């Protein structure tokens, strides 16, 4: 666990819905306030699939972390970790690869403190309060924690994060900076909301998401694939979330596009 930071986080305003707490609510958690639940219900009313999207994203993360552990990865940098309710990356990673290191990064100070509480007493885990757009800070704080050795392969998890970064903040530049910071053989995981194959109400949901601190930007498959510049996508490439290496017993919906999100994992060349 890291000590107090000298960086004053952006304000803590529990009267504003938080993306992390809305996500938690969709995963059946109670780490949320009335304002978060009200927004979640409103989004769910507009887009009935949203809960499913959130849940399948979580399930994808579980499958992917197991896959990465199976590829020998022992360092995980989970950026935009949110408030982990159940099936947390560190639990999955440590179960699949005892001795692995996990660093959570989130911009929401409440999510950070929550993670800190959950991780208390768990070896080789840490939390950073940082903005994904500030890659330099993410990397330097991770190194300060002594948990991640960037000369060795590391898995960078950007699950449901990049769609919070508007084009004006150069998300491709953010990903490229992360790519340049990690060693060859490192992995990049992205799941990202999309309008591909979506009904129009998704656009409305996107507008509503503007009531959280950040707005969701829907991007198409080509745009998301471009973030993997310098990486080679592993099978099955960039696909709708339920299609990414489903477990043998999983029932894959015949309309996987309904989840409205792509997922992909690539290895750095």
């Amino acid at each position, binding site marked *: 666990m890291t000590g107090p930071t000298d960086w004053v986080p952006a304000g803590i305003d529990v009267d504003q819905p938080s993306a992390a707490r809305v996500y938690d609510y969709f995963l059946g958690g*109670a780490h949320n306030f009335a304002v978060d639940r009200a927004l979640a219900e409103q989004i769910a009313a507009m887009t009935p699939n949203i809960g499913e999207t959130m849940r399948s994203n979580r399930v994808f993360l579980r499958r992917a972390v197991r896959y990465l552990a199976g590829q020998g990865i022992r360092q995980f940098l989970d950026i935009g970790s949110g408030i982990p309710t159940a099936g947390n990356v560190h639990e999955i990673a440590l179960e699949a690869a005892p001795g692995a290191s996990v660093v959570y990064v989130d911009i929401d100070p409440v999510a950070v*403190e929550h993670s*800190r509480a959950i991780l208390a007493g768990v070896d080789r885990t840490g939390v950073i309060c940082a903005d994904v757009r500030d890659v330099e800070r993410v990397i330097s704080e991770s190194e300060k924690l002594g948990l991640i050795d960037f000369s060795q392969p590391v898995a960078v998890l950007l699950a449901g994060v990049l769609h919070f970064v508007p084009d004006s903040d150069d998300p491709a530049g953010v990903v490229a900076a992360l790519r340049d910071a990690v060693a060859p053989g490192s992995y990049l995981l992205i799941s990202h909301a999309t309008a591909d194959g979506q009904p129009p109400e998704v656009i409305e949901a996107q507008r509503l998401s503007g009531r959280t601190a950040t707005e969701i930007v829907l991007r198409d498959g080509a745009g998301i694939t471009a973030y993997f510049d310098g990486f080679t996508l592993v099978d099955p490439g960039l696909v709708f979330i339920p299609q990414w290496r489903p477990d043998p017993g999983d029932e894959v919906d015949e309309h996987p596009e309904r989840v409205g999100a792509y997922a992909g994992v690539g290895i750095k060349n």
Partner: protein
Amino acid sequence: MPPQDAAGRAVFARRWRRRVARAGFVPMDHGELGKLLRRLTGRLCVLLRAPRFDPRAAGEIGAALVGAHLTEPAVLAATVSVIGDHLVAAAGAGPGHRERVVQIQGAVAAGYVRALRAATMAEQERLNRAVLDAHATAERALRTSEEHLRAVFDNAAVGIGVSSMDGRIVRVNQAFADLLGYPVEEMCGLLVPQLTHPSDPPDMWRLYDEMIRGDRDHVRLEKAYYRKDGAVVRTDMTASLIRDEHGAPEFTIAMVQDITDRLRLQDRLEHQANHDPLTGLPNRAMIAAHLDRIFAGATRVGLCYLDLDGFKRVNDTLGHQVGDELLVAVAQRLAACAGEPGRVAGRMSGDEFVLVVADPDGPQELSALAERLLAALTRPYQLGQHRMRVSASIGVVDSEVRGTTPAELMKAADLTLYVAKQEGRGRFVMYDADRNARQAARYELAAAMPDALDRHEFTLVYQPLVSLADQRLCGVEALVRWRHPVLGLLAPDEFIPLAEETGVILQLGRWVLEQACAQAAEWARRFPELRVSMSVNMTVSQAHEPSLPFDVADILARTGLDPALLVLELTESAIMDTEGAPLRALDGLAQRGIRIAIDDFGTGYSNLAYLRRLPVHTLKLAGPFVNGLREPGEGGSVDEQIVETIVRLAHAIGISVTAEAVETRLQADRLRDLGCDTGQGWLFARPLPADEVTALLIGETTAPIYVNT
């Protein structure tokens, strides 16, 4: 346990798993979920068969589901429904267990809800704790950064002060206290208005009031402060208004940076740019700026423009070092005379100084001032071992500001100074508009001359010289005219003195000489037997120009004129050098065969002694002598005796005599009788253009002529 029981339980667990998986988010994979539900199925079967119902154990099954994060309400619905439909079959029990099934459903549901409620409360508590922790972290960070800020405040090199809205200084850092020479505690408690300085910008307190009222958030200006010890520090001051969370003004923060040194350097550079480094007086640029200010703000302006008489000689004879010392001493006396508000002395260049007076009382103030200046400047100077006196000439102008400009004022003063020089130096002259206009016109004319030469506005006419004995044309005198495009035809006395002053005479003189020689050469070729000579006038500065012999030789060579046909006419003053001795250059010219004539003889000192030592060939008698000649028998006048004496003397030393301004036949006859050789004047011919002279020469070849008889 019988094998069919195991198979029944497995079927139940599979059904249950399928229903749960459809119900909602399952944070585990199929294998894990199946394992959990198979275990719980076993416990359900035990509960069903137990002789006595154990509600606590049934509740634990519901709690186990919540513990596995199967928290979707639909999971409970699926569970209750699967138990109701299939548990009896799974356990291989009979229909008599109906009541027990209902008991199990109720207790599982109660356990689930209890656990969910506990989990929810725990999560809410964890979340609240996270919020509190986040606040604590933020506060810690804030405190750390506040400590940083305090360190910055305490250790900053710039002075920082905080004052409340009632103008009281409540906090200052060490730098600010040091800057003003107070202990920190003493400075706190001062009022902002106590820091007033006379040089504060006029609108500073208005800006401060605006800030106090909340109408302005920042002010930045240069401000001077009195230190506690009375010294002055000059600062770059920035004040900012800090508002409370409702936007109301709370206090002000001032940051001051000591720029005394910078301003001092700036002042020094500005002083250097505006002052003459030798004397320390304001220079031309600053005087110009000062005049601009006067013209903007005053109604009258006075100017003394002065120049030392003969300063060049001081420099030439005693060296620049002494010259510089003299200028410094002059500047000091000038500054002492100026020592009154509204009077500024300055050095314009070399030995030219000015004294500018704003709003003088009138011409009498300026003339009094000029008198004092002259008196002060002519007192002896002791410069090292040299004791000397100098005089100065002053042009004085007193004028209303309206209707003139600084440039016109300076020009008028300069012209007036020139008049003072001309009138004999060591004096001051008050500006006179008419004289100034004349002077200005003359200047204009002088300035136009070089261009006029280029544009061929000058022309030559020739006045014949006639041999008095036989009335033959023996020569001509070249006279220059200026066909001025505006003023018309100008006679030499209207522009030659000007040309002499400005130096254009050298250029003009060369041109005249070349034209005249070329014309004479042409006549000599056409009328070789007539031996017509060409007389050309030389001014003082032409005669003294070192290149004169070369110029003459060069022109003779280029025009091909026989030197014996050229006569150079010089006045007595032109023939003498500055020491009063005859010019050596004339010997060289005479040796080449060129003749020298003394013009206007009899009007100067007419020193007959030097005539013997000079290579002079002709004397030209000035007009007044000729004018005084009368009929023979009327009694010899004094003029007649003088003419006779001069002619005799001249002839005695081999010099011929020409009479100028011969206007009557009587005069011509008397002159011939007195032995005068040549005559020139309207009696014979006025100055004529070259072609008319040519016509005369053609007549001359057939019969002697004279005109106007």
